[in-house]
């Protein structure tokens, strides 16, 4: 795996994020470790509230009170960044870490032309004259596929369509060639036909420039298409990390498996979708042992008492005791006909 040979661009180790509330500290992120190699796209998926966006926010240093990093380290190219001051972090953002958010409108200042914003960003971080910066901005807009960049550079954000605006945001995030880009739901606000265009642009540019990307999304389709590796989050923890094809086609964790099977497909007709019973626990009431155990069709006694860490299995890592059990008995963790949850789905809502 190329990912392990070179120094990773981003290395998060044992990250804990807590929210101080009047009822005590809530663990929102509980021991997350991940790394991204140069030019690699790591997809981070999970249900809302699983902590995927929060992880991205912590890396960009934009975590706001009452949230705080209570333990763990974040390293950018080997250098610790989780303990930097606000000012140092501000300089790092934009220069070394680029960010792309869901709503392109909030990332662009409506009062300035896109050219002004691009030139300003470039000149803040790179020693360039206005003219050079403008040339670079135009080249950047061309690269993200904006038609007629020489004229459109002097237009205001509202003069662009949603898809074009998101292209501009990508240009803005990549214009100083950061080492790492955090893309938080970059396609969620866009129409399906435009989503594909944006993903293609993001993927091509990061490949060309060797930028590491953390792609946070709830859309498995986007992950399947863009990511090299996938990290699946559940209740503030990592459930599974692995190459995209392994995670999607041969998921090791029952949660990932349930998630994949619950997605409707147009390839064949099914009367009922496979569903995971119940819903993700709230932060205040995460069960003992494996956080997924009350919903897991294959949970056994150990799952209820002991929390599993990531365990290597084939190409992936999965936080599941089943993986270890089967490694010892040397059986495939999944029988060919995996027993699908048979309980009446209606019970699910109360779990």
């Amino acid at each position, binding site marked *: 795996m190329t990912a392990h040979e070179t120094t990773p661009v981003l290395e998060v180790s044992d990250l804990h994020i807590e929210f101080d509330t009047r009822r005590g500290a809530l663990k929102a992120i509980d021991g997350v470790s991940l790394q991204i190699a140069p030019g690699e796209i790591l997809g981070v998926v999970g*249900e*809302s509230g699983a902590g995927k966006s929060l992880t991205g926010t912590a890396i960009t240093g934009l975590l706001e009170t009452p949230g705080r990093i209570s333990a763990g380290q974040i390293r950018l190219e080997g250098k610790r960044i989780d303990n930097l001051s606000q000012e140092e972090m501000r300089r790092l953002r934009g220069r070394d870490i680029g960010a792309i958010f869901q709503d392109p409108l909030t990332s662009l200042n409506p009062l300035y032309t896109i050219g002004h914003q691009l030139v300003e960003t470039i000149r803040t971080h790179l020693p360039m004259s206005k003219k050079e910066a403008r040339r670079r901005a135009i080249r950047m807009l061309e690269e993200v596929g904006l038609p007629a960049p020489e004229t459109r550079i002097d237009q205001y954000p509202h003069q662009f*369509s*949603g*898809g*074009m605006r998101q292209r501009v945001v990508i240009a803005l995030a990549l214009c100083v060639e950061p080492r790492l880009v955090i893309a938080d739901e970059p396609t969620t606000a866009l*129409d*399906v*036909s*435009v*989503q*594909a*265009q944006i*993903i*293609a642009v993001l*993927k091509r540019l990061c490949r060309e420039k060797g930028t590491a990307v953390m792609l946070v999304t*709830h*859309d*498995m*389709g*986007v992950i*399947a*298409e863009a990511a090299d590796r996938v990290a699946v989050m559940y209740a503030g923890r990592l459930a599974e990390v692995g190459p*995209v*094809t392994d995670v*999607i*086609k041969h998921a090791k964790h029952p949660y990932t498996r*349930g*998630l*994949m099977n*619950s*997605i*409707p*497909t*147009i*390839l*064949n*007709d*099914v*009367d*009922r*979708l*496979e*569903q*995971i019973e119940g*819903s*993700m626990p709230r932060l205040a009431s995460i069960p003992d042992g494996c956080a997924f155990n009350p919903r897991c069709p294959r949970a056994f006694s150990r799952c209820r008492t002991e929390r599993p860490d990531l365990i290597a299995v084939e190409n992936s890592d999965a936080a599941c005791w089943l993986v270890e059990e089967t490694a010892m008995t040397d059986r495939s963790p999944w029988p060919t006909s995996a027993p699908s949850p048979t309980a009446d*789905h*209606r*019970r*699910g*809502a*109360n779990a």
Partner: protein
Amino acid sequence: MNMTQEIYSASATQTRPREDVSDMPSVTPVFRIANLKRHFDVSPPLLNRLLERKERQVVKAVDGVSFDIYRGETFSLVGESGCGKSTIAKLVVGLNDTTSGNIEFEGEDIATHSRQDMDAIRHRLQMIFQDPYASLNPRWRVRNIIAEPLTVFGLLDGQKAIDERVATLLECVGLNAQDGEKYPHEFSGGQRQRISIARALASNPEFIVCDEPTSALDVSVQAQILNLMKDLQREFALTYLFISHDLSVVYHISDRIGVMYLGRLVEVGTKHELFRRPQHPYTRMLLDSIPDLKMTGRARTPVGGEVPSPLDPPSGCAFHPRCPHANARCKREAPRPLHNVERGFVACHAVEEGRLITRA
């Protein structure tokens, strides 16, 4: 391109399309929507128009749409943002007034109904909304939210009868009868959507409009809700009008599908016809853009262009600027529906002229 072929061939090997006609539940439509139009006046105020010499501006959100919905089926409308699908949902349940056209519910034109006439049939039409966080009044207990249709329609007498009915409804959607005492904020998104469904079922409706009911939910919860909706449809013989932008969900839930583009229907057909033998170039484009997990790493064929502003739609066929098969006639003339399939049609000059070979 690859993928489309894969899908189309999949139909032959994996699942033979059901014999649609024999499977159709009934012959007379529950809803017959004919040449429905809804235009919104978005002009600046009179004073600004006079001072700044601005023109009157009209958005044709729905511009001449016709389709039928048959008893017991799920009819879906799909399309990208701004295509008018949600406006149709609101028109059908009477939340918006029509500009022109007919909405016939079991032979009665409800577009021209007076308030009193509408009241008589209202309990038979219900709606489920998109945002489970906005569709329940945060200040009301769940039991009162679900009971509201019962009390407004005066369907049940006495508090006891209402309480019993609410308890039954809660259990029907997979919640506990005791949950009625709680407030909406005590539930997760999926549970709230269940409450919303219970409210819609309270008045024993025959027809439910579902406006993107799962698009605000996580996929695993989406599966729960879609399964629930299918079960309830069978149990209570419901007819659904389902609005969504997610083609995989639409394929899963629907019997027939209508594809909308800028206020018009471009193609209607059974789900198998539409997904396996799409006719309209826009339908094909949409299908090509579906991401599918089973095809990891395969880039979707990115389609050029975006939906134009509904304020200034293109002339002729609204899709012509993005259409690879457009010619001079497409720019000039809006295509008329060509009824070349059972209970469906396509509106495209290229198909009509045979310039476009139907992929099979």
